[in-house]
């Protein structure tokens, strides 16, 4: 779950990390009122869950409340980097003396949180990593020890801070780490951490919460529940409501598999034979007939899907259940589409028999099936 900037900043505030004065607005009028309250030049920032917003024109500056209203009017309802802007953050514009970066991220290799710092703030960390990797200072945090104040001081000294600023930045990093742990962050960043005459301030805020940990953060869902759907397509939102593990793609062949790896491999194989997958849809382990039915029905309603490829390797998943699900979906469907089924494993014979009786042919090999489905729609 990726929080929007204003949501992340609200969590930052809970942890005592300094953020600029400001609030979120969903109408130009609200933006004007907030700018009046702040009574200083403001930044009006599109709230979207994707990076590169500044370059894409998603951040505007305003000297007066009238300008803030106008800027909000321009952003709200527009699309920035393909995402519709529904809210803007109106906040005090900072007097920047410099831009740093502080981050805490899960590092797979070391199986631990890593603290990251660089004096090259204000651009995406990936860009810094590509251009001047030596400017990024990393510190692996032992999960059983945590980030200690002296670690934090060491790290921020490496990016050139001394004296009071070092202590201030170390304190912010410690808070960011505590936030990461307590909020189950996959990634949290302050980029840029602005050097201003009044001290250090988180000019932007990023917080991606581990989806698997959301059961511990019901309050977060209550506070910010809606926005996590912002980055999703219409169909992805629909799939989420149905409880399906679904990612929308651009092609014409609807794909259903069981198991994430097998489903990915199925997409890859379809593409290898010249087809273009319309989606990723993983039934998971041991799907009952009604989940199969829901998945098939869901793909049938996608106008860009011209044919379906269902690839099942039965382990916990039973082929007869899958067959029943497919048949039920066809019975329910208004419009049927060509379907290729590849199905082996647990209760394979029973499943195949059911499908054959229903006039649906079943193949043994994934590659053969991929070739068949591509040929069905005439390749590309």
């Amino acid at each position, binding site marked *: 779950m990726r929080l929007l900037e204003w949501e992340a900043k609200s969590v930052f505030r809970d942890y005592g990390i300094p953020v600029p004065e400001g609030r979120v607005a969903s109408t130009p009028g609200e933006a004007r009122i907030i700018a009046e309250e702040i009574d200083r030049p403001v930044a009006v920032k599109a709230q979207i869950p*994707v990076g590169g917003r500044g370059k894409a024109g998603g951040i505007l500056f305003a000297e007066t409340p009238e300008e803030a209203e106008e800027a909000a009017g321009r952003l709200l309802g527009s699309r920035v980097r393909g995402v519709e802007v529904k809210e803007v953050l109106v906040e005090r514009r900072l007097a920047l003396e410099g831009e740093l970066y502080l981050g805490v991220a*899960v590092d*797979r*290799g070391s*199986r*631990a*949180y890593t603290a990251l710092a660089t004096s090259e703030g204000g651009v*995406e960390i*990936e860009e810094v990593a*590509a251009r001047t990797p030596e400017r990024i200072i990393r510190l692996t945090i*032992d*999960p*059983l020890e945590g980030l200690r104040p002296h670690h934090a001081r060491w790290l921020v000294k490496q990016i050139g801070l001394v004296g009071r600023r070092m202590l201030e930045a170390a304190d912010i990093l410690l808070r960011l780490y505590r936030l990461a*742990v307590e909020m*189950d962050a*996959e990634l949290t960043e302050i980029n840029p951490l602005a050097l201003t005459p009044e001290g250090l301030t988180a000019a932007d805020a990023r917080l991606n919460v*581990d*989806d*698997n*940990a959301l*059961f*511990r953060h019901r309050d977060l869902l209550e506070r910010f529940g809606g926005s996590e759907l912002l*980055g999703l397509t219409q169909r992805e939102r629909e799939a989420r409501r149905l409880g399906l*593990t679904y*990612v929308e*793609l651009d092609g014409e062949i609807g794909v259903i*598999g*069981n*198991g*994430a*790896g*097998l*489903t*990915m*491999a199925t*997409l*890859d*194989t*379809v*593409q*290898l034979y010249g087809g273009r*997958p319309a989606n*990723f849809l*993983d039934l*998971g*382990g041991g799907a009952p007939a009604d989940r199969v039915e829901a998945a098939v029905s869901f793909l049938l309603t996608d106008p860009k899907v011209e044919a379906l490829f269902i690839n099942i*390797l*039965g*382990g*916990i998943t039973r082929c007869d259940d899958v067959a029943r699900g497919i048949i039920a979906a066809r019975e329910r469907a208004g419009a049927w589409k060509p379907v290729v089924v590849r199905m*082996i*494993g*647990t209760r394979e014979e029973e499943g195949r028999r059911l499908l054959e009786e229903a006039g649906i042919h079943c193949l043994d*090999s*994934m*590659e053969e099936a991929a070739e068949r489905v591509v040929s069905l729609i005439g390749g590309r």
Partner: protein
Amino acid sequence: MRMVRFVDAETRAVVQGITGRQGRFHTRLMLEYGTKIVAGVTPGKGGETVEGVPVYDTVAEALDRHQVDASIIFVPAPYAPDAVYEALDAELNPIVVITEGIPLRDEMEMVARAMRRGITIVGPNTPGVIKVGECKLGIMPARVFTRGRVGVISRSGTLTYEIADHISRIGLGESTCVGLGGDPITGLDFIDALRWFEEDPETEAVVLIGEIGGDAEERAADFIAEGGFTKPAVAYIAGRTAKPGKRMGHAGAIIQGSRGTAQSKMEALEAAGVSVAERPSDVARLLKALLG
């Protein structure tokens, strides 16, 4: 360097979370396979039996009554870390964590505690580990495996079965197959497993089944390139069609920024001398060519 322990015909295991639906079902299948499941644990259900296996309230009580080496865990995600700590306290090794959906923070702590004690965690979110024909400590369908010469290391479940099935059909068969798990944090990575297979006399070649996300495959490639693993190796990487920022089912299968693409992994492995398969069915053919 990490010590890795897998399973064999001697391994005696406890099933934690044995009274749940999954636990019961797979206890039966593991027993059918010949795995020595000597006890089960579900707090509050002590005194029951599942498939003839006695159930205890705590692992400690199971150890009072039985010789136990290893554990397999089917406990739901919020409680799974505690089950792991209980197994660690009992010094069971390996600990196979089937559970899906454990938070990353818990996984990091779990793995750190296991490493400190020199105990192997297989998973989480793994199909488990099987020594073909001897011991299946996992949920993989027995049918696709035939005892043979190839070791399999995989981040994926069903894709492993798909590929193992081909390896079995082509007549090579498998020695030991281990699922690393589909999460970003797992107890083992490819390198840990490669070290084990390098020493395993029954393994003549290894298959690496990777997917998008992270850089475990790239690191494995470096390890192989540096001579850490010297037997023939074939790889398959899933997720060439994946879009950055979209999680492809597994929590671990996500391309973040420019990192973790299938392309990067395939190139690294090829550069390390690993044969990289285009399609799952090619894996067995490439192995056959390498092993003759």
